């Protein structure tokens, strides 16, 4: 990425589509050590605050007839609960808090990232890779603990002809190990792409002739990004549920 002085000498259009993703220390300059509070820390903290406000503060009255905030909390609860129950079945319910944690973090981080000038934590591959590989490792360990070697039946498609099975096993194995990669890159890529496109359109607004179109485009893409922010959280969660189901019931 070009630094500021390079950008200043850009000829007509100046785009910094990737600048919004730079991790900076919150206080002062200097190297980013593993403990340094950065803007990523700030927005993750805000995600925690959002989760607490949404699920804890809004339900503090424990009203039988819910208010607006409590309705949202109950809707989120019911949404994820039903998803877990539908996809993984009854025995997946005990993993509901973990999946709810993932969902709430991703959805809050995605929506917070859409605030202009904010930092999108979920657009970073480091973050989503931890989420994705965390799910992958947990699910794999869980599969072996619950089913033992029977878990390997996931790769041995017993309904296929015997000659095809080794080939299918290799394909299944590859697709199994690609899962966390696609799982994490899908989220980060979607977030990054949307924000970069927004930034590019905002950059076009510097040219007076196309500024109205550019602003219209920014508005439209912002609406799309609101949808994408939710859908990606939903997709991440439901794929986690699907992987969990595979671990709990490996026999297709």
């Amino acid at each position, binding site marked *: *990425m070009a630094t500021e002085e390079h950008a200043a000498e850009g000829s007509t259009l100046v785009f910094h589509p*990737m600048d919004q993703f730079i991790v900076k220390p919150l206080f002062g300059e200097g190297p980013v050590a593993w403990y340094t509070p950065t803007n990523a820390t700030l927005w993750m903290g805000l995600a925690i605050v959002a989760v607490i406000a949404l699920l804890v503060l809004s339900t503090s009255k424990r009203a039988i007839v819910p208010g607006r905030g409590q309705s949202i909390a109950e809707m989120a609860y019911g949404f994820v609960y039903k*998803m877990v129950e*539908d*996809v993984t079945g009854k025995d997946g319910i005990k993993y509901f808090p973990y999946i709810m944690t993932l969902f709430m973090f991703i959805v809050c981080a995605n929506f917070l990232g859409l605030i202009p000038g904010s930092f999108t934590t979920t657009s970073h591959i480091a973050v989503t890779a931890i989420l994705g590989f965390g799910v992958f490792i947990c699910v794999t360990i869980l599969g072996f603990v619950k089913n033992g070697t029977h878990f390997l039946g996931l790769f041995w498609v017993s309904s296929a002809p015997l000659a095809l099975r080794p080939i299918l096993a290799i394909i299944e194995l590859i697709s199994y190990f690609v899962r966390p990669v*696609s799982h994490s*890159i*899908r989220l980060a*890529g*979607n977030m*990054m*792409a949307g924000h*970069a496109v927004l930034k590019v359109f905002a950059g076009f607004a510097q040219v007076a002739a196309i500024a109205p179109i550019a602003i219209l485009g920014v508005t439209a893409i912002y609406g799309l990004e609101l949808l994408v922010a939710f*859908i990606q959280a*939903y*997709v991440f969660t*439901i*794929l986690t549920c*699907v992987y969990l189901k595979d671990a709990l019931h490996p026999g297709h």
Partner: protein
Amino acid sequence: MELVAAAALGKFIGAGLAAIGSGAAAIGVGHVAGNFLAGALRNPSAAAGQTATLFIGIAFAEALGIFAFLVALLLMFAV
């Protein structure tokens, strides 16, 4: 120096080619959603239970487009 220029040219051409993958993913997503809609109109009562499958299908189709986009980005900024 010419080699650097050629490398830069190749980078941009490659990024542009990789961006075609996004369009291909768009075709895929449209296919999934369109077929879902066609099926849902034939049997609306069964459609509500299949929205999860729809989103999973869209996510898989879209992930590949995102990979293409990522390749483009890597070519543009990281290589």
